[in-house]
């Protein structure tokens, strides 16, 4: 009996070894590195204090699927409450998914634990939105950037860490002498660089960026965006770039996914989405973006949506956008549109033939082409 369990342990250890090896194996450029399938996160709504009774659920993420390819930037846009930040937390395993899978190099990371999960964490890192709350105010910059090495000692030997931290500061464009300073001695843009340096410390393959520049001043945003693009080339990173600013997402992304109420409405390459959108929500979103060009004020067609985003605790039946859509018909209330190439464009060689979850998809140019 004792022998058997020992044997089991050995098998388990060997399995874990194999898993870690698989997780650390390289991926070719352009191959999918992260595959998300039917990801769901429902937050239960409960009543009662000690004995809780579930009375409903907030469907923050409700069946999202996409691929992230090695070396690319996938932008995710959407309004607040569409679930884009929850997607980031799920991919980071900071929240447990209600359903669905996230395959990282073929391994479903939602089911990992222990050493294998730690190996995944080494390879997928995150940059947070708010540079003021994402750095521990009681730790020095050196301790913050060096913490990944404390947690994963195999990455850098102890004597080497200080030098590594200084290198990282240098890479993100900060003075390496700042190593002993505290976060509150830096401005927002500098803090975001510290956050990026921490994310880079373990040499990750994927960086998930949750609104990395939205809390920064306009004149500093461009610096950070440029830095992120430079680092992507230098370290061969794949980015999942979550933001609400459509202009920035267009600038940095190779492909873009548009989310609405926990679902993906449309996904495609940047020119497919921005120049040939077929989902009415994408069209409305694009047309609402203020363009820094007063000349465009007059001859721009604006689609102004009525009403607000419905509550994710009680989403509309069928297509979740139908309550604000000017094209909505009977069918939209009954059938959930699938995220696929719309049948009207099927087999056609046009940029409009990309994934769009609308029953009545049609192309409409809303962003003036240049």
């Amino acid at each position: 009996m004792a022998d058997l369990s020992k044997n089991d342990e050995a098998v388990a250890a060997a399995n874990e070894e194999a898993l870690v090896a698989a997780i650390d194996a390289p991926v070719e450029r352009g191959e999918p590195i992260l595959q998300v399938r039917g990801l769901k996160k429902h937050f239960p709504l409960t009543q009662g204090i000690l004995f809780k009774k579930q009375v409903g659920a907030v469907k923050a993420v409700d069946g999202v699927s996409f691929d992230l390819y090695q070396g690319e930037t996938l932008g995710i846009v959407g309004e607040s409450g569409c679930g884009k930040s929850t997607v980031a937390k799920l991919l980071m395993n900071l929240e447990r998914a209600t359903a669905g899978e996230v395959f990282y190099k073929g391994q479903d990371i939602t089911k990992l634990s222990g050493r294998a999960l730690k190996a995944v964490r080494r390879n997928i890192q995150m940059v947070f939105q708010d540079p003021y709350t994402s750095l521990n105010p009681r730790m020095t910059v050196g301790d913050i950037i060096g913490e990944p090495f404390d947690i994963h000692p195999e990455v850098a030997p102890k004597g080497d860490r200080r030098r590594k931290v200084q290198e990282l500061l240098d890479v993100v464009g900060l003075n390496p002498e700042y190593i002993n300073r505290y976060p509150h001695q830096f401005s927002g843009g500098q803090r975001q660089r510290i956050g990026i340096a921490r994310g880079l410390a373990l040499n990750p393959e994927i960086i998930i960026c949750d609104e990395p520049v939205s809390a920064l001043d306009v004149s500093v945003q461009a610096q950070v965006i440029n830095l992120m693009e430079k680092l992507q080339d230098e370290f061969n990173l794949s980015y999942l770039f979550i933001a609400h600013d459509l202009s920035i997402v267009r600038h940095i992304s190779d492909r873009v996914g548009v989310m609405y109420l926990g679902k993906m409405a449309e996904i495609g390459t940047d020119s497919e989405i921005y120049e040939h959108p077929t989902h009415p929500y994408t069209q409305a979103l694009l047309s609402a973006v203020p363009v820094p060009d007063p000349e465009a004020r007059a001859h721009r067609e604006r689609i102004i949506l009525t009403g607000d985003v419905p509550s994710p605790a009680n989403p509309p039946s069928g297509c979740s956008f139908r309550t604000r859509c000017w094209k909505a018909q009977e069918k939209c209330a009954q059938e959930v549109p699938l995220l696929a190439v719309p049948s009207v464009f099927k087999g056609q060689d046009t940029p409009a033939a990309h994934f769009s979850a609308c029953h009545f998809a049609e192309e409409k140019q809303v962003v003036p082409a240049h």
Partner: protein
Amino acid sequence: MPDVTKTAAATAPDAVAAPPVDAPAPQDKAEKPRSLWGDAWADLRRNPYFLVSSVLIFFLLLIAAFPGMFTSASPTAGDLVKHYVGKPELGDVGSAGWLGYDIQGRSVYARLIYGTRASIIVGVCVTLIVTVVGGTMGMIAGYFGGWVDAVLSRLTDVFFGIPFLLGAMVVLQAFVERTVWVVVFALAFLGWTQMARVMRGAVITVKQADYVHAAKALGAGTGRILFRHILPNAMAPVIVVATIALGGYISAEATLSYLGLGLASPTVSWGVDISAGVQAIRTSQHILLYPSIMLSLTVLAFIMLGEAVRNALDPKLR
């Protein structure tokens, strides 16, 4: 571009497109690393309330530790001839009789000096125990949440529901001999809930900070998250409440002793003396007056310290 540093040149070959963020301004170089604790300390040092209260507390601690340094008279040796003598013996500040004598002819001054120890021991020890026990409970409840929190919070509520003094009286009744340590136990037994609540609230706030998520995303274990990230950031309100509460525990001890439930003669304590002084309030007010002044001053000192610390630690009040 006059201020491109060497580092920037190395990382940003195209200086216009990806410029150095912070080729520091010359003044910046003089800026020293300043931790938040360091900032708070710099603030405190300039706060007159802090200076006054810390000088007071320093003296109180000194008196408590070495009462023999301040008087050579014994607090318990009575000379019935001097019974109720209230007039100071002029010219002898610091001598046994300069604050008069009590009902049994004992030196009021010596009793003040020796009584300090009881008050300080009760205040400091109760605060320490309460902070450690309550803090741990609060941290566990706040961090783990769920049923752990539910159980611990209800337990806290049960204790919180007991009126502090009434509860302490009941606990004290269970002991035959009421030493200082018994009083400490009674007060700590009922006082930890306040700290538990404060700590729980602070931990829940800090737990949601992005840097805690960031540490989790790096794969940090529970111990590291709790002690490196959550505890240092949740300590501030606990420290403030603890300092202010310390004064409260001292006065609670005096109250209990006054009621005849806390310390009792021959233990020397201000509460005991106040109780005795009340009996002679019509004729010899000095017996009541001096211990009362000492008690108020001590409580005030700790409350002032707590306020000063709060101002230094709470950035919103700056």
